[in-house]
């Protein structure tokens, strides 16, 4: 033992101190593991020192964001794989890091920091620690969703994210929040069961749950009605979180009763991660045209139903919640467009929605209540009102703003597809744009109504977050073509099935399976 110890010591002494900071592919696990570990450490640590307990969460988020940035820079353009515990796929579980996965994985801790529940409000003690723990669980499992390359692992992270979000949504403790959470929980459990049945069908057919392995086997084993039903079941299951049409009835009530920052995080990011899983399934496993048609159909129905409901909504949080469900419909339709173009359009809509809707939810922090009560709020909160108008314009698709380009991409893609279903979806996008402008400007007009306002301005931190997203939106407006090139790079890599398979199974190993 002592000689072993000695050997380790000499190795450590010989190691270049700079090399110790170098990150290998294995470090891809850290952004998932660190928040999960911290989630269980927050409460004991708060017993010891309240200040340390409150610092732990943000510190972990900063470090996981830093690790992800280092990995992205370190590996450059080529995707890489982290085999958990050293067991290579298909026996073990892998994390897959391409640009798409890293982009969303990086957004998780960043948005987690912006919407950290303890920042900018005075809370302390035990409930704060419990909420921090739940937020860390949600962050850890969401990062896992973005990176995971295995259906089993995705299912577990999805459930973990679901349970953490049930806790966070009901954190205000008001009776209405609890009823909303209960209804959310029932729909969510139904979704999990459907997803699990879908995963079981895939397993029965192929004998594996590794996405890369499935990509190789799918052309023989997952064609026809059985494969399609497996896809539909998983789509419904993961669609609960992605606010997909038949399962989005929880959206308005949950986002209206949950704390605004939780709504911002769930609507902004977690819904997109569920979409990301569906996209991975679509690109790697289910390449049938029928799968795309289901997606377009449900997306169109979701878009129309949610936008009409938003048009009729009378309170601000429910209006933007329903509008979020409608936008997710557009995201699904965009991803259903064939080829790289569809992925680019889908990514553009998803990222645009992420910026705008997160910011709108942070504005709704204090602007809860009916739209009539927002009358004249601009006089008390000029910056927040101006930001609202900016986001509304971009959401509707006013030409120089990024929202215009995203809608243009979707419309052009659908027009090029040209099937009846796609043209119908195109019509729906145009109709909902009219609806969106109608209800968003109804709010805008109320905000700038001259009457004296009773509504206080949003909290400083939340206005700051919204302003940050607003600034980002303007930067993207100025730099549309570089951002477009970036998205094209991400999309062509994400849409490359053989790259995924060859990265997970390097050539030497590939022969054995």
């Amino acid at each position, binding site marked *: 033992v002592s000689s072993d110890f000695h050997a380790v010591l000499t190795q450590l002494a010989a190691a270049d101190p700079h090399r110790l900071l170098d990150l290998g592919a294995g470090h891809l696990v850290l952004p998932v593991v660190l928040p999960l570990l911290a989630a269980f450490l927050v409460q004991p640590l708060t017993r010891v020192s309240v200040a340390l307990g409150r610092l732990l969460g943000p510190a972990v988020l900063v470090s996981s964001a830093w690790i992800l940035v280092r990995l992205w820079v370190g590996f450059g353009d080529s995707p890489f794989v982290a085999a958990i515990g050293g067991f290579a796929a298909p026996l073990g579980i892998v994390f897959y890091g391409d640009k798409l996965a890293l982009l969303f994985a990086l957004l998780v801790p960043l948005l987690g920091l912006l919407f950290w529940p303890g920042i900018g409000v005075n809370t302390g003690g035990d409930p704060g620690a419990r909420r921090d723990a739940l937020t860390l669980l949600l962050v850890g499992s969401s990062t896992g969703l973005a990176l995971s390359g295995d259906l089993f692992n995705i299912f577990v992270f999805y459930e973990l994210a679901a349970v953490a979000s049930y806790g966070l949504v009901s954190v205000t403790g008001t009776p209405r929040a609890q009823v909303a959470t*209960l209804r959310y*929980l029932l729909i969510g*459990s139904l979704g999990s069961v459907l997803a*699990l049945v879908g995963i079981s069908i895939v397993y029965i057919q192929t004998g594996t*749950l590794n996405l890369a392995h499935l990509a190789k086997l799918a052309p023989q084993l997952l064609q026809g009605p059985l494969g399609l039903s497996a896809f539909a079941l998983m789509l419904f299951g993961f669609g609960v979180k992605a606010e997909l049409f038949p399962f989005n009835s929880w959206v308005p*009530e949950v986002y209206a*009763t949950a704390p605004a920052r939780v709504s911002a995080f769930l609507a902004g990011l977690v819904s997109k991660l569920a979409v990301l899983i569906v996209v991975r399934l679509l690109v790697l496993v289910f390449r049938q045209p029928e799968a795309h048609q289901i997606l377009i159909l449900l997306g169109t129905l979701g878009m129309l139903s949610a936008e009409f409901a938003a048009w009729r909504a009378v*309170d601000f949080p429910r209006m933007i919640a329903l509008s979020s469900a409608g936008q997710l419909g557009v995201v699904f339709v965009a991803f259903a467009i064939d080829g790289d173009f569809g992925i680019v359009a889908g990514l553009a809509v998803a990222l645009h929605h992420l910026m705008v809707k997160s910011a709108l939810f942070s504005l709704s922090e204090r602007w809860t209540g009916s739209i*009539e009560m927002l009358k004249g709020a601009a006089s008390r909160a000029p910056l927040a009102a101006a930001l609202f108008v900016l986001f509304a314009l971009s959401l509707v698709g006013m030409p120089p703003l990024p929202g215009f380009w995203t809608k243009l991409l979707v419309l052009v893609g659908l027009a090029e597809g040209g099937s009846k279903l796609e043209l119908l979806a195109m019509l729906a996008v145009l109709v909902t744009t009219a609806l969106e402008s109608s209800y968003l400007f109804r709010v805008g007009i109320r905000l700038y109504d001259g009457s004296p306002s009773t509504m206080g301005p949003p909290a400083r931190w939340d206005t700051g977050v919204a302003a940050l997203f607003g600034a980002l939106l303007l930067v993207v407006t100025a730099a549309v073509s570089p951002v477009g090139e970036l998205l094209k790079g991400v999309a062509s890599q994400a849409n490359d099935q053989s790259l995924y398979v060859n990265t997970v199974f390097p050539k030497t190993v590939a022969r054995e399976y």
Partner: protein
Amino acid sequence: VDPLPQVLVLTAIVIGVGVEAMAVAMLVRVYRVYGTLEMGALRTRMERDMAEAAGYFAPASSDAPAGGRPLPPVPQTVRIGARLVHTEQGRGVQS
């Protein structure tokens, strides 16, 4: 033997039990406040509470009888096991 199905089933059971425990905890808390577990009634009350919190009155359905149908009153006490627990309504009357 492929261990994957066993692992999948076990994990699903564990997760299922966890979610069920959470659902039961929610049910108890909701029952303490509203004194009912009927999902329809709970939904109506939630919508009303949300409307009240937002500062407007929930628009009645067009099929509702004129004058509106009053909600059944929230009971003042509910029975949880052998214990009799006051709902929020009951506490409000007492104090």
